[in-house]
Every structure is written in structure tokens, then in C-alpha cells.
């Protein structure tokens, strides 16, 4: 029996992708069998949409003619369905350029039909001209620019792409006209994150990366490529952008390219869109050509999906390169034949710009971008006892790894933890790193020395991907599941040390990681000149410039350091450091409430003379710095620091999640247990909710308010309240006969105490 309601729920509870598309295909079949025309159209539309927005659009293209036929056969449904039909039609004409199988005459026919129906249903021709421009943009720019002029004459309508997509389209026109200033101006709302959608800014970054690359501006190309790369990995619909990025990475960063390449292979093999396949193959071929200069063979189980088979030494790079070259060549030829233009084939043979690493770093030093290439995170892992190589291998195999290989030096592991792909290189250290004198934070010196004496130490290298906090949580989760005999870790990149209890806690609770766990602050100074400066260490591993303040003295450096600390934490929470001279956050004068913007400047163009010993001037060549402008702040003693709302929310989430630990702790004698609850305010109050502390009654699920709310009259000091975990905002716990007052952030210590 055909039950559309159940099918709709089933589909909507599935992740996007192949399985969901398959389920919709079955629904189409069932609707056909039941001869229910409304649902025949409904599910076909869903099918086309899924294939187009979350796939390679191939199946959607095949389905469309039948969908249109059924639509035309049922005029009684057209009033309800014409809007869907026109969207599906728009997707079709937007992807005609991808398929050499569709002859040019048929392309023209579809465009004409779309134009006719747009007029019939009262939509302006804006979308028609937009898609016409896109079709011709690369292969016949003059034709495209003519269509673009027409596009501008028509107003937006409900068949238009979203505003972000339209801006992206106009930006591409400006790039095609070799006007990058105009392009950046058009794209500003996208680049400032004001406008976005399912594929914006991903494709915007890709277009800018490609443009700058072809203009030999490698620094800008790398910047946009990295932004794009962070968004598109693992998504089939962005295979064409992955191809462009591979071309760029083949010149500027083989490692990034290899990573993107191997994680995209499954999508490549499942892709039926010729244009996507061709562009990916072209990029892959160029990348493999570069890799072949350095090595003959490569290893990764992820390559197993390819038709090229490995030999005993692994996959021969030359063979892989040939396979992708042939694929790219074959499709390029067919596309050129269909388009009656000689365009894609010459592009394949075109020589790419030459790249000079030093030059790129010098360019990057001067660049205005706060986001930089991520550096690796190095972690020293200390174990209470040795683990044999066989045992370790067994454990790794028990984990759900994407790929695993090893050589005499190290294990190479790829995992996907909570949808974050992470690559690890783990090697056993012959001895503990010499950290006795190092400025490691997070542990007392005695504890640290004990940790360094652990009988076994591994070195782990990884690159944080996605958002730093989530990614670091995934790393901790990986470590705690791989090493049950862990005694502690030292994050050599951020210079922080943690015992095993914290690692387990941070691996269990995503919100257990604070931004401060990912960097350290260090002060430097000159007594002679009474100068103090401070730097962050660790932001580069999150993909940002390290930050520095200069110009403080021994009197006021604490305020400077506090601002630097808050600013760095904010960048990590938001996973963003804005470009030079753009406001990162604001401080406020306590007295006047005037706001002061905090921004960074390039050491090269900085507002003041830098002390010769400051990090930005003298430190390592491979680290990019930004110098915080704090000189314009008035009296620092009366300045309110930037507010970290995300931190407050993180602790609230952590408080809620760790409440069971608190309940467990309360089974033992305690001095006090306090809980901060969120309560709804009165209807006429200025705010929607208020926060109140209450004291938990021993042996009860109730608490007594410790204060009265001025915003919610029903909540008065001394009254009893029930505890609803979802309203918990914070808590404190003091065990009996103890001075210590635990917070959610320190719940791991409480956990240790309980166990």
C-alpha cells in the first residue's frame, strides 16, 4: 500500500546523499504504481532536487523530461505545482553545460522552452538570462556578457536564485572581465558572511582562488583555496571546485592537495556528471604529476575505489596520473565537440604558473588576511606502560578508521570522528621530549616532571579541521579510546599539559574544551626601556595569525594581556580572525560607555615602532603575526573587556550535560551544592529570561532560591523550586571537609574524586 506520509517522514529523517536519493526513487515508483499523480510529481521534484543540490545532478537531469511530461499531462495539478516545476526547470538549464550528451540544438530548445514558460507563469526573464550567461561564460564570453546586460534589466522573482547566488554570479562576471576590484566589491556581503546559502561562500572562494591562481597571485589563491577546502570536503556536489583546488594545490601545497584528493575519490567514482569528472580529473592529474617528481608509489586504502590497481609497493603515481589525464582528455574533447569550441582541451595542456614558496610566504606576510594556512598540532602522549606494536595495530583496527597504514617510522591513520575527518601520524618517541625547562602551562611543575618520567611516549601529529574546538574534542576522543593507559599529554604546539582525566573528559564532552586549551600567552619585555609585549602561541594551529600586543609597560601590561587573551579566545570560538584593520571585537569604557574597536595590523605596516625583540619582528620565519592595536584605548584600568557570549553558552551547555556528575557527587556528603537556573521573566519585563542561583537541598530534587528576581515576580528568595536539567546554566559543588569548589569546567576533577 502506498503511504506517502510515512515515506515523507522516512526521507526527511535521512541524511542527504545516495541512500536518500534511492529512497525517493522508490517513492517515485510506488506513486507511479498507485497512479497518484500529485505524488508522482511531488516525489519526482524531490528526486530532482536531491540529485541537484546534494549530488552530481545526473539523475535529476535524466528525470526531468518525464517530470515535465507528467506535469503537462495533468493541468488540474498545475496551479499547485508550477512553482516546483519552474525550479526544477531552472536547475536543468543551469546544468546543461555539464553534459556533452545533450546536443547544442537541444540546449537551445530547453532555453527557449524555459523562456516561454517563465513568461507564461509570470516570472521575469532574469533567471533565464542568468542561466544563459552561465552557459556561455567560459566558452563564449561575448555571448555571456550580452546575456548579462539583459539579466540586469529584469527584477528578481520567486524563480530567481537566492541573493547570495546572484551576487556570486555577478562577481564571476567581473572576474571574467578581469576586474578583481569590482568582483571583491560585489562579493563583499558574501565575504563578510552577510549573505550565504548552501553553496555560497564555497563556490565564491573557489572562483576567487582560481582567478588569483591564474593571475599568479599565489598568496591570495592559497587563502581562498584554504577557505573553500574547509567547506567542501566530502561533498559530492562540490567536486568541480575540488578539481580547481587540486590544480592550485598541485602548485602550492601538495600535502593539502593529497588530502583533498584521497577524501574525494569515492565521490569522484560515484559521479556521473561529465564536467565535474573532467575538472576533478584535470586537477588530480596535475597534482599527481607534481607528486610523481618526489615519489614513485603512494599508499592509502582510500585509493582502492579506483580502477587502477596497486602493485606490491602501492599505487604507481605515474599510472594514477595517466588514468586521470586520459579521463580529463576524453571528456574535454567531447565537451569541446558539443560546444563547437576548442576550449577545454587547450586548457588541459596549458602550463600552470610556476610557484616559489619563499615568494608566497613573503607575499603572505604583507597580506591583509587574518586566516592563514594551518600549522600542524604536535602532541606528546605519555602512557603508564608500553604498548607493543602489534597491540597498537590491533587497537587501531578496532577503531573505525577511514584508512590506516604504517612504515618503520610511524602509523598513518585517517578517521572521521563526529563528521570531522582527521589524519594522524603517530610514532613512538625514543625518549620523552626535553620539556623540563619549557614554559608548559596547565600543570604544576611536579606533576609535569612526573608525567615526563612515564615509561612510554608517543608523538602525534595532526591538523585540526573544521572548527578548532570541535576538532580538538575529536582528537581527545581519539586519544582516550586508543590509549586507555594514558597518563597525560603535552600539546607541544600550544605548550599546554593535561592529565589523562582531562583528556577523557574532553573526549566525552564536546563543550569540555575551552578556547584557552588551544593556545598560551607569553610575555616578553625589556627592563631598560620598561617595555612589555605579549604573544599567543597556538593560534596558527587553528588557522589564524598569532597575535601580539606591544607598547605596554610594567604597570599596565596585565590589561593588555587580558584583552589579548579575550581576543584570541573569541577568534577560536568563532573560528575566524577578520582581515587587517577590520574590527575583531570591541572594548567599552566603564565611565563613558564609548566603544573602542580592537583590530590587528601587519607588522610591516603597523601603527607604531615595534620593539626589536618583539615576536613579530624577530621570531620564526614561518609564523605570521598580527599586531593588536591597543594604543587608542583610554585608561586601561577602567576598560570593560570584550564579552565572550559563546563561552557563557558553552559553560551553560557543559553545566547541563555534567549535571548527572553533580547528582552523583551529591550522593556523598557535601558542604554546599549550588545551581544557577534560567527562569522566564514576566511578560512586561525588559528581558526574556533571568538567571538565579539556588541551593540544592540534600536528599531532594528541589532547590531553594538564594536570591529574588527583579524580572520575574514569581521567583523569590527562600522559595523552593524543582530542578529541570534543561534550565541549568551553571553549578558549583563543594564536597564535605574540602576547601575546593568545583565548577562544570572542573567536572573532570570531581569525576576523578568520585572514582
Amino acid at each position, binding site marked *: 500500500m502506498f503511504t506517502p506520509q510515512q515515506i515523507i517522514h522516512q526521507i526527511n529523517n535521512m541524511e542527504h546523499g545516495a541512500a536518500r536519493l534511492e529512497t525517493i526513487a522508490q517513492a517515485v515508483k510506488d506513486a507511479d504504481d498507485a497512479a497518484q499523480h500529485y505524488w508522482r510529481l511531488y516525489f519526482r521534484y524531490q528526486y530532482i532536487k536531491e540529485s541537484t543540490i546534494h549530488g552530481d545532478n545526473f539523475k535529476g537531469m535524466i528525470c526531468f523530461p518525464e517530470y515535465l511530461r507528467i506535469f503537462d499531462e495533468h493541468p488540474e495539478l498545475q496551479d499547485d505545482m508550477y512553482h516546483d516545476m519552474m525550479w526544477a526547470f531552472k536547475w536543468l538549464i543551469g546544468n546543461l553545460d555539464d553534459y556533452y550528451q545533450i546536443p547544442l540544438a537541444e540546449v537551445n530548445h530547453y532555453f527557449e522552452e524555459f523562456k516561454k514558460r517563465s513568461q507564461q507563469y509570470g516570472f521575469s526573464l532574469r533567471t533565464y538570462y542568468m542561466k544563459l550567461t552561465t552557459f556561455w561564460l567560459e566558452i563564449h564570453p561575448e555571448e555571456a556578457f550580452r546575456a548579462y546586460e539583459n539579466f540586469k534589466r529584469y527584477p*528578481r522573482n520567486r524563480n530567481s536564485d537566492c541573493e547570495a547566488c546572484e551576487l556570486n554570479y555577478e562577481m564571476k562576471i567581473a572576474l571574467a572581465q578581469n576586474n578583481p576590484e569590482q568582483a571583491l566589491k560585489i562579493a563583499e556581503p558574501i565575504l563578510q558572511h552577510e549573505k550565504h546559502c548552501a553553496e555560497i561562500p564555497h563556490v565564491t572562494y573557489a572562483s576567487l582562488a582560481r582567478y588569483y591562481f591564474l593571475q599568479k597571485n599565489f598568496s591570495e589563491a592559497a587563502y581562498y583555496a584554504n577557505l573553500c577546502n574547509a567547506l567542501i570536503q566530502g561533498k559530492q556536489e562540490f567536486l568541480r571546485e575540488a578539481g580547481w583546488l587540486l590544480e592550485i594545490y598541485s602548485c602550492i601545497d601538495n600535502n593539502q592537495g593529497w588530502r583533498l584528493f584521497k577524501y574525494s575519490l569515492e565521490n569522484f567514482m560515484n559521479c556521473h556528471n561529465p564536467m565535474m569528472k573532467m575538472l576533478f580529473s584535470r586537477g588530480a592529474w596535475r597534482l599527481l604529476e607534481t607528486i610523481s617528481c618526489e615519489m614513485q608509489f603512494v599508499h592509502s586504502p582510500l585509493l582502492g575505489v579506483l580502477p587502477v590497481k596497486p602493485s606490491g609497493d602501492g599505487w604507481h603515481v605515474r599510472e594514477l596520473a595517466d588514468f586521470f589525464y586520459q579521463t580529463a582528455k576524453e571528456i574535454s574533447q567531447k565537451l569541446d565537440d558539443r560546444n563547437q569550441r576548442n576550449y577545454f582541451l587547450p586548457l588541459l595542456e596549458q602550463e600552470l604558473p610556476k610557484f616559489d614558496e619563499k615568494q608566497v610566504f613573503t607575499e603572505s606576510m604583507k597580506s591583509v588576511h587574518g586566516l592563514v594556512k594551518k600549522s600542524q598540532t604536535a602532541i606528546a602522549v605519555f602512557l603508564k606502560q608500553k604498548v607493543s606494536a602489534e597491540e597498537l595495530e590491533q587497537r587501531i583496527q578496532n577503531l573505525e578508521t577511514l584508512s590506516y597504514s604504517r612504515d618503520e617510522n610511524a602509523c598513518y591513520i585517517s578517521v572521521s570522528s563526529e563528521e570531522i575527518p582527521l589524519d594522524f601520524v603517530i610514532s613512538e618517541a625514543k625518549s620523552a621530549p626535553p620539556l623540563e625547562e619549557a614554559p608548559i602551562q596547565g600543570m604544576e611543575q611536579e606533576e609535569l616532571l612526573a608525567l615526563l618520567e612515564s615509561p612510554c611516549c608517543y608523538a602525534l601529529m595532526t591538523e585540526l579541521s573544521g572548527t578548532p574546538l570541535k576538532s580538538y574534542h575529536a582528537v581527545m576522543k581519539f586519544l582516550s579510546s586508543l590509549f586507555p593507559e594514558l597518563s597525560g599529554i603535552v600539546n607541544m604546539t600550544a605548550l599546554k599539559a593535561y592529565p589523562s582525566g582531562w583528556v577523557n573528559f574532553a573526549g566525552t564532552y564536546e563543550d569540555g574544551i575551552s578556547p584557552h586549551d588551544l593556545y598560551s600567552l607569553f610575555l616578553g619585555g625589556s627592563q631598560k626601556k620598561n617595555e612589555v609585549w605579549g604573544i599567543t602561541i597556538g593560534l596558527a594551529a587553528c588557522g589564524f595569525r598569532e597575535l601580539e600586543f606591544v607598547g605596554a609597560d610594567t604597570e599596565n601590561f596585565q590589561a593588555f594581556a587580558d584583552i589579548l587573551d579575550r581576543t584570541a579566545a573569541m577568534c577560536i570560538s568563532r573560528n575566524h580572525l577578520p582581515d587587517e584593520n577590520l574590527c575583531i571585537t570591541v572594548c567599552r569604557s566603564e565611565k563613558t560607555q564609548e566603544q573602542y574597536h580592537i583590530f590587528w595590523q601587519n607588522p610591516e605596516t603597523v601603527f607604531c615602532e615595534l620593539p626589536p625583540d618583539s615576536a613579530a619582528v624577530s621570531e620564526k620565519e614561518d609564523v605570521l603575526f598580527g599586531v593588536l592595536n591597543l594604543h587608542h584605548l583610554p585608561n586601561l584600568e577602567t576598560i570593560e573587556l570584550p564579552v565572550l557570549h559563546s563561552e557563557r553558552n558553552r559553560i551553560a551547555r557543559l553545566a547541563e550535560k555534567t549535571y548527572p556528575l553533580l547528582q552523583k557527587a551529591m550522593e556523598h556528603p557535601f558542604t554546599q551544592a549550588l545551581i544557577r537556573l534560567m*527562569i522566564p*521573566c514576566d511578560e512586561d519585563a525588559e528581558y*526574556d529570561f533571568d538567571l538565579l542561583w539556588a541551593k540544592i537541598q540534600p536528599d531532594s530534587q528541589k532547590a531553594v532560591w538564594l536570591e529574588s528576581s527583579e524580572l520575574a515576580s514569581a521567583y523569590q528568595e527562600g522559595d523552593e523550586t524543582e530542578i529541570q536539567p534543561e534550565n541549568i546554566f551553571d553549578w558549583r559543588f563543594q564536597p564535605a571537609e574540602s576547601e575546593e569548589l568545583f565548577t562544570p569546567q572542573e567536572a573532570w576533577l570531581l569525576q576523578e574524586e568520585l572514582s
Partner: protein
Amino acid sequence: MADFSSLEHEFYLFDRGEPRLKRIREAITEADQKQILEWQFRFRYDYLEESIFCGDRYFAMIIFPEMLSLYEKHESLYQDARISHDMLICFKWIVEAAPEFPQISRAEIDSYFRLFKKMLLEQGKSLSIYYMKHCLFYLNVDKAIAAADFYRFLEEPLDDISDGRALYYDQQAMYYLTIGEEEKALEAAKLIFAGKLKSNALPQATYHDFIRYYLEREQYAHAVHYAFLTERRVACDPYYLDIIGTLLTLYSITKIPDGLRLFSIHYALYQTSKNPLLKMLFAIGSYHLFRAMNEEKHHVILEQLRVARDSEIFRNPPEKIAEYFYQAADGWVQKFDSRNGTDVFSRMLHLLDDKFH
């Protein structure tokens, strides 16, 4: 023109409901006599808005066709961006209100929806509100179409015609409850329950959805928890007779005296309401309450029903009163279910049958 403008300001001096509606009606007549198109439209808008929010949508249903006809006939109206926007707002209210009247056929409601969708598309608006209201109606008609609407509603962006974020989440909570997804409903309602999102009808409408959900599953303790939070927010407001009806059903099981108290306060509103849906839901609750009284052998009705003492029906034993409300409710139930082609309201009427002998 200036006269009409000050006349419009005067409306706010009148009490909401009938007195204000009467004054606006006079203004409409005046604008019609002087044939000033903009004010003919504007006063009708005021009238429709007042009747939608004063608690009786009956008047809105009467004025809307006049308004639509004016709008469609006069280019100067539909070319005016502000008036076109107002027309969409009225349409939004009407497609929600129309299903509350069984005399409006399903075909008529469908045609309203179609026209609403077309008008949204013409003005380049999001279809979010269309899918939301369509889903609301079809929940009682065809759950598959409601499901399709619901997911489309989630995909569409909110815009200036949409109902706002609070109702956006309320609608989600309500839908998830109808398909038995309690956890998802609680997640959707989180911001509303925390007081972070509010509207005129929220959180009470969201609480109501949960009360119904728990009532149907006989989880009365949960239902009572939400009922406690709801009662003070809906008491004495004719707009919420449906919620009062649900509370009566709940109290018929958990606390009959509370039910009687609530019934006494609201019976007068029930008598004066012209909204069939609200009346039906109140009558269903009343039927449950008196039937439960009969089962529990409650006899001291008159003393408790101070407000309704003058009504002849209350001189009868509870069994007879229950019968009276059953008849009243059943009349509407038949009409609604037959218009919708389902038995949703019939099941609601017979919800507690297995509890009564």
C-alpha cells in the same frame, strides 16, 4: 483624507471586539459613500484585523471577499506595494481562519490557498507562510500532504509575511507532536518554554499542543503540568475557547471541581462566540466534563455553576447536561469531519469513551 486618518486613530479609543468593530463598520460605510478607494480598502483591513484578533473570526470571513474584490478590481490598489503587502497579510489570516468554518467548503479553502500562493509568488515572497498554514489545515484533512508541506515549510526562508520565529518553532513542535516525535517537539519548543521566544499566542498555544499530546496518551501528570502553566494565560479570552475545551477534558479526568470552575467562567463566552471550531472544541470539553461528573455521581451542580444558574439546561442532572453538549458538539463534528473527509474531530469527541461505562 486627513479626516479619515484621524478617524482611523479614533478606533483605538473604543474597546476591542464588538464596540470597535461597530465603529470601523461605520467608517467603511462612510468611505464607500465617498468612494475613496484607499480608505475603502484600509478600513476593511482594520475591520478584518480586529475581528481576527478580537476573538471572533466570523466577521473577518464576511469582510474578506469584499476586500479581495476591491483589490482585484482596482489597479491602483494592487500596484501599491504597501497595499499589496497588507493584502497578503489578510490572506495569511484568512487561510488560517477559513478552516474554522465548516460552511466553507474544502474546494473553497483550496482555492483561497491557491490564490494566496500565487500572490506570494507574484510579490516575490517566501512560501514559508503558505506551507505553514496549508500544513495546519491539512493536518485534519490529509496527513501526507501536511507532511509534505511541513518539510517544505522548514526549507523556505522566513520573511516579512511570515509569522516570526516564535510561531515558526511552535508550528514545528505542534507538527512533531502530531506524528508522535515528542523529543523533537521538546527540542523545537525549547526557546519558547525558556521564555526566549514569545508572541501574543505563545507560549500558551505551545503548552496546549503538549497538553493534547499527553492527554491522548493518558500521561495526565505531564498534561496537568502544562495545564497549570496555561490556564492563567488563556482564562476569559474568547480567542482561547479551544484551549479551555481541552482543559475541561483534562480536568474531567484529573480534577472535576477545577473543570467546573473553568466551565462556569467561560460558558458565557461560549454562548456568544460565533466561531464554530472554538464552540465545538469547548462543547467537546464540556461533554467530557459532565459525563465524568455523571460517572462520579456529582450532583451539586447548580451551586457551583453560579454564572450559568439562569440557564434551564443546568437544572438537569449531569447526564442530561452531558447529552446536551454532546448533541451540540456532534452537530459541528459531523460538519467539520464531513467537510475535511476525515474523523479527526469525531475521535476527539469519543476520546474518553473507554473511561465511561
